[in-house]
């Protein structure tokens, strides 16, 4: 999944990007309000982490604009403004969650994950589809009747995308956009390799190929 991080402090932005990547997200950084607005409207992101004190254009203005023009992607405000009247202002502008600086990385990840889950109308708790349950902390997949299966970082990212959209055909382009951020130089067959490795771990039937369209994660299938 791909996250837009709008943060003007480059050190903090870099550290946060590393943390988020470590948790399996693709991350793009927007250093100011105008850039954030431009990137968010590309439609590539699953969520935005928005600082309010952005240069060139205040974060609240950008957020209000998004909501006014019907852009409804989940937004988590990450700011130093910690007074309750400021939080209310943020929510009124259309924020979905609000976290104040300084913060702990674990809390940010927990809130981001819950926010993405909520945005898809999924119940809180571990992500589970069919007989599969994804452990976000250890980045393992557990079948209902077997030992947990360890995943590599990109396997985890890809599998989470499949689990968030089960039984739907997902195009190669769509998957690649969400798997990698702009800094990533992916090879042409990297996705295919990853899919094959997941099939090896979860069973051939679990991920089906739809020729010319993409891949589909079948929630009911996949005996190892």
């Amino acid at each position: 999944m791909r996250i837009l991080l709008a943060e003007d402090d480059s050190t903090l932005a870099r550290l946060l990007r590393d943390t988020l990547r470590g948790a399996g997200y693709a991350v793009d950084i927007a250093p100011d309000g105008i850039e954030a607005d431009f990137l968010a409207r590309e439609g590539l992101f699953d969520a935005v982490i928005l600082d309010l004190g952005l240069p060139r254009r205040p974060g609240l203005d950008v957020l209000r604009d998004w909501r006014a023009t019907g852009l409804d992607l989940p937004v988590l405000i990450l700011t130093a403004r910690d007074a309750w009247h400021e939080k209310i202002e943020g929510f009124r502008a259309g924020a979905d969650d609000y976290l104040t600086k300084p913060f702990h990385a674990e809390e940010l990840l927990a809130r981001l994950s819950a926010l993405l889950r909520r945005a898809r109308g999924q119940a809180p708790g571990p992500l589970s589809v069919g007989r599969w349950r994804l452990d976000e902390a250890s980045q393992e997949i557990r079948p209902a009747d077997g030992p947990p299966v360890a995943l590599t970082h990109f396997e985890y990212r890809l599998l989470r995308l499949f689990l968030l959209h089960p039984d739907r055909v997902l195009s190669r382009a769509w998957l690649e956009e969400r798997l990698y951020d702009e800094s990533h130089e992916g090879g042409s067959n990297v996705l295919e390799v990853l899919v094959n490795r997941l099939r090896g771990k979860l069973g051939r039937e679990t991920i089906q190929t739809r020729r010319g369209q993409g891949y589909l994660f079948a929630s009911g299938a996949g005996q190892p």
Partner: protein
Amino acid sequence: MSLHARLALWLGLSLALLFLLHGLVTERAPRITTEDYIATRLEHDAEWLAGSLHATEDGRVELDRAWIPPIYQRPGSGHYYLLRLGERLLLSASSEGRALPLPPSEGLHHERLPDGTPLLLLRHDLPDGDILLIAEGLGELNAHLSIFRGRFILISLALFALLLAAQFLLLRWALRPLRELREATERLGRGEIERLPEPHLRELRPLVAGFNGLLAQQAERLRRARHGLADLAHALKTPLSVLLASPSAQADPITRQALERIEGITQRELRRARWGSEEARQAVGIDAAAALDDLLMAMRRIHAARAIAFEAHAPASLPVRMEREDLLELLGNLLDNAAKWARSRVRVTLSGGAGEGLVAVIEDDGPGAEVERLNHAHRRGQRLDEQTPGHGLGLTIGREIVAAYGGQLHFERATGLGGLKVSVELPPRVE
């Protein structure tokens, strides 16, 4: 003393003085005029009588009876004369034998008959030492005048009362803009309006404009101070976030702990500066119920992942005299603390009003806390976050805001929900 009372008193007194002077003059006027008229008549009669004196053949001076006006001949008519000719006294028939008193000098005199009847008496000296006294009784005139005076006093008193009443109404009408201004100030205090309305009275306009200007200036200053502090907070917090997120801090627990302490101190001191100011107590009124609605909207989103049910009991509108930011901060921290500890439910109850201040009760169904220690922490000069890990900063902030507004914070076990129950009582603002 009120302006109304002061004006009423002095206007009333001057009115009374005016009536008194006017009354004294008016009361005397008829008597003076009438007595002048009587005196003229007496002089004419005296001349007439003196002219009717003539000498008889035996050399005596006599009055010609044919010349005497009939009024002097009728007994008890009230018109008398006495003629002293040498040793002889000639009395009018009306005198019925009673001699008139003899004043020491010529001219007009107030005298009395032996029976006490008041007289206006003219002594007219004739040649050869003869004296003519001529008089008219004033009894009837006095009776008329006393009736007139009685009526005059009655009418005057009625007029005076009427004028006083008119004056009272006039004052009320004239001072109405002031009364309206006072009511507007009270409404301003209760938070029903944000500035004073423009008065109709030209004299009051600069006053109200000045007051409104001051109000706006104050609000702007407060806003700027808060924004300045928010900027400072932002400036400090981002580098702190960098440090907290940095791999070195993640790896080293000592660094991390120190950073967390710096974080706590920064937040506390910024908060203290934010509401420790004098402005907090000059706050204008706001609607607490609306503020609570805003907060619950935020709370439901912040605690969405845990599906906490927030239950609110508050009147449709609840004016309190507080800075909106302070009220949000107070209720926000208490609600957030309750939500953090609650298993599934948080209940908030607001009551009170402009006159009674504000009562807020926040309960949760969490594990509760050591309420005795929370209740006594401040007496020993301890902060709650030092005493009770977890139930910390939020309650400390709540306590500091409540203290700034002169209120009370009380902790007990929530009987219904089973967790912690925090009661806040804020007194009505001291005028």
